[in-house]
């Protein structure tokens, strides 16, 4: 029987495994899948490139090492928050309070450190811990009491703004001491040699994972991508990483005749944090049962329940992850501003982070989304904000900048949508 049916479920090993034939088969298959609608990160990537080119043209110095660094450290809080949001969005939920949760957690950390003399690591730990607890609370209300997440998090959005305000009190802000390790995250740089070491580790790690996967499939008698493809991917990634590491190695100190001769060179430490968190969450989503269950619950909750998945537990967990990541994002934002404001995390923080995830390709209806979406979408949003600032001068410049920001956002998203639809042909 197996002989007969194998004819239909093709044993993929029937195809050549290596060489030019395999490569062209692989590419044909890939193009086919793209035409069939599996676009992955293509639209977000194309959008990112287009607006970067536009700003590089209209905005002198947009691609300078100075501005690239500024862009990265501005994007970091957005990306981190969007990473957490991807998890709740995967379940078709929303967390409107991620922004103010981040603000609250960073306020707790700052107040403990500054006013109560806690060591920085303890303040940080408590801040992040509170974030996770908040998420557990929201998740519990959603999963066990059954309040829609929009309403719960609208309430916490309001309430946490109040708590932060009470905590920070009349001073309007708590300033972090300049030598605090928290500040280092966004304002201090990886030594050049270490940057290259990390780059090498990253590239080798990526290559090792890919090759190991391929060999594993081969051992199990399954088809595997040709090594030429893997090599190509590794080379592209290595080149991109090298370009970034190199650019970040340029001294960004603008004033030619600075008398403190402090060089600004090397990538900010937050890049390391971003890469680690990205890799970690990506691993969890794509290679653990837990990640699998997230997609399943987002895709068909009833089917997941029938498959024995404890849906309420999954649901609680994503809110905990989201609020925890919001706390991380809040801490990074505090590092960027070297202080915590009494309105930290309010305003458009959350909307921009959700927008980032959605532009990256995550669906608001659940079941579709990846961590890379947060990274790419967050970069798109940060590029727009960075590119817009200082573009228009004079009275009412704020008004015009808002208008243009909206328009550019729409263009980026429209582009994305058109690319996605092109496959329908």
């Amino acid at each position, binding site marked *: *029987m*197996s002989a007969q*049916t*194998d*004819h*239909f*479920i*093709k044993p*993929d090993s029937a195809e050549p495994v290596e060489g030019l034939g395999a490569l062209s088969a692989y590419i044909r298959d890939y193009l086919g899948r793209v035409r069939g609608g599996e676009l992955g990160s293509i639209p977000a990537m194309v959008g990112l490139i287009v607006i970067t080119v536009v700003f590089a043209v209209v905005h002198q110095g947009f691609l300078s090492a100075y501005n690239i660094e500024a862009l990265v450290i501005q994007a970091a809080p957005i990306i981190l928050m969007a990473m957490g949001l991807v998890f709740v969005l995967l379940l078709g939920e929303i967390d409107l309070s991620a922004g103010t949760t981040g603000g609250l957690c960073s306020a707790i950390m700052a107040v403990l450190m500054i006013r109560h003399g806690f060591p920085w690591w303890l303040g940080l730990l408590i801040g992040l811990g509170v974030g996770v607890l908040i998420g557990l609370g929201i998740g519990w209300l959603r999963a066990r009491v059954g309040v829609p997440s929009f309403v719960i998090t609208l309430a916490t959005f309001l309430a946490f703004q109040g708590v932060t305000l009470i905590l920070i009190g009349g001073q309007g802000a708590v300033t972090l001491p300049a030598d605090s390790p928290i500040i280092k995250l966004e304002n201090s740089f990886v030594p050049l040699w270490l940057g290259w070491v990390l780059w090498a580790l990253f590239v080798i790690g990526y290559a090792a994972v890919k090759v190991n996967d391929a060999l*594993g*499939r081969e*051992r*199990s*008698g*399954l088809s595997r991508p040709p090594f030429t493809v893997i090599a190509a991917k590794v080379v592209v990634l290595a080149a991109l990483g090298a370009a970034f590491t190199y650019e970040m190695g340029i001294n960004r100190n603008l004033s030619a005749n600075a008398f403190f001769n402090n060089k600004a060179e090397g990538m900010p430490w937050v890049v390391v944090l971003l890469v680690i968190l990205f890799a970690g969450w990506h*691993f969890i989503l794509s*290679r*653990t*049962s837990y990640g*699998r*269950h997230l*997609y*399943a619950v*987002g*895709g*068909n909750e*009833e*089917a*997941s*329940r*029938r*498959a*024995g*998945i*404890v849906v309420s537990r999954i649901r609680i967990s994503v809110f905990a992850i989201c609020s925890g990541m919001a706390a991380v994002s809040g801490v990074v934002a505090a590092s960027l501003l070297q202080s915590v404001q009494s309105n930290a995390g309010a305003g458009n923080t959350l909307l921009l982070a959700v927008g980032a995830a959605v532009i990256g390709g995550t669906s608001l209806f659940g*079941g*579709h989304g990846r961590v890379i979406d947060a990274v790419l979408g967050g970069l798109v949003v940060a590029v727009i904000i960075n590119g817009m600032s200082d573009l228009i001068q004079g009275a009412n410049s704020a008004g015009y900048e808002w208008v243009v920001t909206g328009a550019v956002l729409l263009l980026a998203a429209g582009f994305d949508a058109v690319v996605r639809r092109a496959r329908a042909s």
Partner: protein
Amino acid sequence: MTTQPTLELRGVDKSFGPVHVLSSVNLTALSGEVTALVGDNGAGKSTLIKCIGGIHRIDAGELVFDGTPHVVTGPRDAAQLGVEIVYQDLALADNLDIVQNMFLGREKVTGLHTLDENSMEKLARQALTTLSVRTVRSVRQQVASLSGGQRQTVAIAKSVLWQSKIVILDEPTAALGVAQTEQVLDLVRRLAEHGVAVILVSHNMNDVMKVADSIGVLFLGRMAAQVRREDVTQTQVVELITAGRSGDLGLSREESTGAAI
């Protein structure tokens, strides 16, 4: 019958708000036998199965597994009792592929808690080939793009991957082609031969008469009768389905004509 039934339902009641769907239903399923559950559309077959699977809570009555009454509060409970169900509405996650769906909730992991995709893919492929699936291009296809029969096959294949004591199939062959239907009926018999208690819901009387050892007939939410296959003819079963009784089998005249429960 002296052997202990693997599954026994005693006086199961279930209503949805004002709608009484099941009224004191009794049913027994023996290990090594195929118990067919038949009945008209809307008679309550799927509801009964969902009660066994823990999707619905029963209002009254008992579910007895291997002689011990259990309260089944959710699908996990049912799975722990060794019950495996293929639901009529084929609960599959459209955004996952075939392998992912087949191992959903019971993924194989390697030592490092990472998913063991390779062995899952191999097992899935094997399970599908035994069911005569011929047009599935790849087991890495999303189930959203499958044809009706292909979806059904995936759901059935999912249920045979595990060593269960009770396998319940709710109209498994409804969307299947001729050859596939044969395979599934074969499978049902093979499962029974391996000592599993199989409950099969079907509207196809030929199939029922072919594979069943015992037949339970639901009529408007009541169990009209549970009879041995050899004691009845197809005509009698059809009469039981449509009228609730046939000769001295089935409900009393009052019960079967009484207004809907």
